[in-house]
């Protein structure tokens, strides 16, 4: 199997410094909706200028280069041990080149490892064996500010009158957006998972964020709730950075899981506007980046 360390390094560089076009487009549209002279409009101006500077100079969009979350779909027969080793080498090299900030801190001893490698779970790598010959590696960088405002609810939640149904889901998601205010670097993107156990629920709420902006759930009922949540969250007027303004949430993505009869979890992962996700596909000798 060929060594993909350099190709993965390139994936990391792109992810950290070049925001996906669908995200940038949505930010530009939102900028137009803010009042001239407002702090909200000023925030968007700075955001858009920063996107251009980062792309031109290959420097991180955000200094918090986040938790690196890799999703690897590999064909039968490829060694995941080797792939994981290459991902880790590429990440250490990316850190040396300042595409990434050293972000792995030992939680017991408060020691930053300096190279972004922190035990078996940092970076987070998920492997999935798939049919066919192509290898795809997706990378998402999720910063700590937005990760901190994520929330998990166990329904029913009497404090906000949320029952075990989609009406209850709507209530807790709006509550999460309110509690986040501007602290997750609004405008944000919501990944919502309904069901699962506490662990799988949070993981799926992030996984759903790999899809493109505007991708709707196949179930029309859920798709409608996604649209409604984005629109109602924006009614709250929290605005970019919490300055007040028209856009608080850029998009909402919901996924449903199986749950135990006793449990009804709703997990909300908040993704900041610096919604960094990129993909590479290896087709034989060819490597294609999105």
């Amino acid at each position, binding site marked *: 199997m060929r060594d993909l360390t350099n190709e993965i390094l390139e994936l990391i560089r792109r992810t950290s410094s070049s925001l996906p076009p669908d995200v940038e487009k949505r930010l530009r549209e939102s900028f137009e909706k803010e009042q001239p002279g407002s702090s909200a409009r000023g925030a968007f101006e700075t*955001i858009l200028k920063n996107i251009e500077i980062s792309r031109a100079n290959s*420097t991180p969009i*955000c200094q918090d280069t986040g938790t690196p979350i890799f999703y690897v779909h590999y064909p039968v027969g490829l060694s995941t041990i080797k792939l994981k080793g290459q991902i880790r080498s590429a990440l250490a090299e990316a850190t040396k080149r300042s595409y990434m900030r050293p972000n792995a801190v030992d939680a017991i001893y408060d020691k930053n490892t300096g190279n972004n490698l922190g035990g078996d779970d940092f970076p987070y790598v998920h492997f999935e064996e798939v049919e066919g010959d192509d290898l795809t590696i997706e990378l998402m960088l999720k910063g700590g500010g937005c990760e901190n405002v994520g929330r998990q609810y166990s329904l029913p939640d009497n404090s906000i009158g949320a029952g075990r149904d989609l009406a209850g889901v709507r209530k807790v998601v*709006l509550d999460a957006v309110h509690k986040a205010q501007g602290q997750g670097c609004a405008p944000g993107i919501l990944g919502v998972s309904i069901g699962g156990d506490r662990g799988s629920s949070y993981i799926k709420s992030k996984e759903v964020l790999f899809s493109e902006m505007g991708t709707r759930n196949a179930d029309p009922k859920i798709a409608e709730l996604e649209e409604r949540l984005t629109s109602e969250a924006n009614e709250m007027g929290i605005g970019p950075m919490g300055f007040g303004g028209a856009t608080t949430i850029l998009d909402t993505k919901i996924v449903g899981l199986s749950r135990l009869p006793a449990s009804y979890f709703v997990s909300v992962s908040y993704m900041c506007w610096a919604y960094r996700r990129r993909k590479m596909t290896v087709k034989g000798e060819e490597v294609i980046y999105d």
Partner: protein
Amino acid sequence: MKQITTPITDDVIRDLKVGDAVALSGMLVTGRDAVHKWMIETFIKKTREPQGDDLQVYEELKKLLNGSVIYHCGPVVSGLDTKEYKFVAAGPTTSIREEPYQADVMKHFNLKGVIGKGGMGAKTLKGCEETPAVYFHAIGGAASYIAQTVTKVHGVFKLDFGVPEAIWVIEVKEFPVVVTMDSHGGSQHAVIEASSKKILEDLLAR
């Protein structure tokens, strides 16, 4: 946009109001979670004995911070091998985590401001009135842009806290910020929290 250069006088601070856009220049010091905890425990509440170069760093910080500003930032820095440090990416981090410490740190070092994102709470707002000081909101995630306003890295203390948590002494030119908490009790964050809460309650009742 108002042009302000550190060190800042109390009169300049008292003139600032919520909503003012400011271009900040001069010397600043970065400090976030580890630094605030260390300052409080070692020098303010003195629940921990100074260790290593703690006292020496403290003396330097007293001079650097007097009339200046602390920046909640964990930068990406190049030149770590050669010590020819350069800020590559340097946006603000979420400030609310320093809420337990900030007002005391402000008063102790006579800070005239804090730069961060997301705003802070009632205790810090009271600290802003008393010190006096203001909260300057930088744009979260605008890291490459803000790094370009950092014209010089003068040095670093406590690098053993890790690159993001160390105390970086920097010089900035026209760093763009917005005052969101002033020294007269005004807080944009409190206003938005309350107005959005009211709308949330209406939405939940639907």
